[in-house]
């Protein structure tokens, strides 16, 4: 794994013991993981951790943080994290959200843009794509879904580091936890909020960077374009020959884009 020291800490949010992976130094940067859970510490985190303290909360119900049964949709989860940010005095915090985590960040920005300093959405769910459909993870195996997340699942070294080799029982269980919790909050409509295009009008004064793989087979690029159109002043950057995981598939370009945006 990587050199940067990172460890797991526990924070209380209401009745829930929230587990957070923390590492690095400097101004906090909140990372909201996607629908298959936090995959592991990667190159891009090493790069950013030199200047930022990375906070990666592990969503309730995804295995490590216990499930909170009152959380029944992504907006509920957003309210949970708003409380966490407020109580930890992190606001306004810079945030990066991946896929489901991108949807979560967008919901939180809609509710209260001021809780964030800058926002990065990476292949974010949350919008019904104007063209194409969001790939349905619930009708496939976790492994099949993961492979479809990237353009090349066979030779990419970062992908191999995370998911190479035979699936272990621990991996299976973690993925099943993640899939179950994602079903609880995002079953239907699948992976989006109907009213999101209108709601995004409430994101104001929040510098936003939208990152997308041009060959994203999970959340079609058309959704990224719609985010760009609806969030005032946002910037859309796309990566060639890249699927749903630019952090894994195009780490150097990804790090560069984020560093230049966050400053």
């Amino acid at each position, binding site marked *: 794994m990587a050199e940067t020291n990172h460890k797991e800490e526990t924070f209380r949010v209401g009745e829930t013991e929230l587990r957070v992976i923390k590492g690095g130094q400097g101004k906090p940067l909140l990372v909201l993981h996607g629908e298959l859970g936090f995959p592991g510490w990667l190159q891009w985190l090493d790069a950013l951790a030199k200047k930022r303290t990375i906070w990666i909360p592990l969503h309730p119900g995804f295995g490590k943080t216990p499930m909170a049964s009152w959380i029944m949709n992504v907006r509920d989860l957003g309210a949970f994290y708003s409380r966490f940010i407020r109580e930890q005095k992190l606001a306004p915090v810079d945030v990066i959200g991946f896929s489901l985590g991108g949807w979560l960040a967008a919901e939180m920005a809609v509710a209260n843009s001021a809780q964030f300093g800058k926002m990065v959405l990476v292949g974010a769910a949350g919008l019904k794509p104007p063209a194409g459909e969001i790939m349905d993870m*619930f*009708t496939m195996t976790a492994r099949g879904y993961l492979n479809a997340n990237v353009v090349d699942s066979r030779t990419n070294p970062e992908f191999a580091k995370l998911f190479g080799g035979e699936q272990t029982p621990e991996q299976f269980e973690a993925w099943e*936890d993640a899939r*179950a*919790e994602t079903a*609880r909050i995002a*079953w239907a409509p699948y992976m989006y909020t109907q009213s999101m295009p209108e709601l995004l009008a409430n994101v104001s004064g929040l510098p936003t960077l939208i990152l997308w793989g041009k060959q994203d087979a999970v959340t079609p690029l058309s959704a990224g374009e719609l985010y760009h159109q609806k969030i005032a002043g946002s910037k859309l950057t796309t990566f060639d020959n890249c699927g749903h995981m630019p952090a894994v598939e195009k780490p150097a370009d990804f790090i560069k884009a984020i560093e230049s945006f966050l400053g």
Partner: protein
Amino acid sequence: MHIMFFTERAYHAVPEDEVLKIRSFFGVSNKFFDAQKGSQLLNEYIDEKIMCDEMGFDGLMLNEHHGTPFCMGAVMDVEAAVLARATKRAKIVLLGNPIPTVANPLRLAEELAMIDMISGGRLVPGWVRGAGSEQLANNANPAYNREYFDEAHDLILAAWTRPGPFRWEGKHFHYRFVNPWVLPLQKPHPPIWIPGLISPETVKWCAHHRYPYVALATLLKPTLEMFNMYAKIAGDLGYQAGPENFGYLQPVFCADTEEKAEELGKNFLFGGGFSHFARPEWMFPPGYNSKEATRRLAAQAANPNLPGHGLIDHDPTSDAELQSLKKALYGTYPEWLRQSQMITGTPKTIVPKLRHVLEVLRPGIFSFWLDGPAPLKDRRRCVELLGKEVLPQLREIGKELGLSDPFEVKPGSRKLSNGKAEAVGRADLIAESTMGA
């Protein structure tokens, strides 16, 4: 003993290769459904049930599956309504309504009440969680499957027994006016039986509700273990479980000759049979299983309780591979027989084999299961032999073994002797050869 007849009402006109290509009945395109053929088959299956009623079967068992040629009974209650009027004597046993997939359980309470009314009080409703694929077919969130199940169950019973109008403000269901006018004829409500594939959570739930548990063609040894888990919980709750608390479904193929019966039995494996009900990722959608069950499954790709699972770990990529898969699937036939998962023969040879199953499990409810493509005349002959020759003998065996059914002894009414639960069934009779999975 309550003796029933069951069939999935399969659509066997589907090309077998289409099932084998995806190793799943669920998901085969409905472009292969021929409406003429479907209409003919549905009527034949209804006629068959009427024939069973006339021959003296105690129960006509129906089930429900969606989006699959494996079972055409996607709206079982419609078939039950037809039988309610077209049959005279037999109970109409629904095993079961997949209540977590029903968006409006109050409507279900009304449907069932009408069936009970029209049949003159012959309805036995039952509830299931629904196979994993049913959650996909009905877009019912599998992560809330247990919660939907529990709440829908409570709502249906309340709708039947609590004078309305009343409000229902639950977690998942919300009604401002619960007051169904037509209520079941049977009071306080029809008897409820629960079928299953021996998931411990369901068995436990049944013991708590004193509902008979009907095991659906599962292996004898783990089935008996689950019956005993039920009996132990029953003991803790202060009652002795008896045959009236248990049921068993058994594939049985009967003909005038052994050869013909064997032919029928082999047809049961059409398309991979039960083993290819649905792909693993559709059998176990997200959150459908408890964490404990997920751990049990972690190392397995398919249902380990069925012979022939895991014969191939990928979809066949060539015709040669498809043909070899087919050969391997039909090659599991002796294994099904060896494990008593299927019984074939003439009435004379079948009865001792059935007796063995009854002696081991001691169920008060027993159902024959007939499926697989076969000419109508062979199928009808099988039903006729079962009804006229096998059924009377089974009834005698049931009496001799004291297999009381839920209409003879109220489930949950049996007292404990010396305050302790006695084990049920006869594990000692399970032959070594049929022990393993």
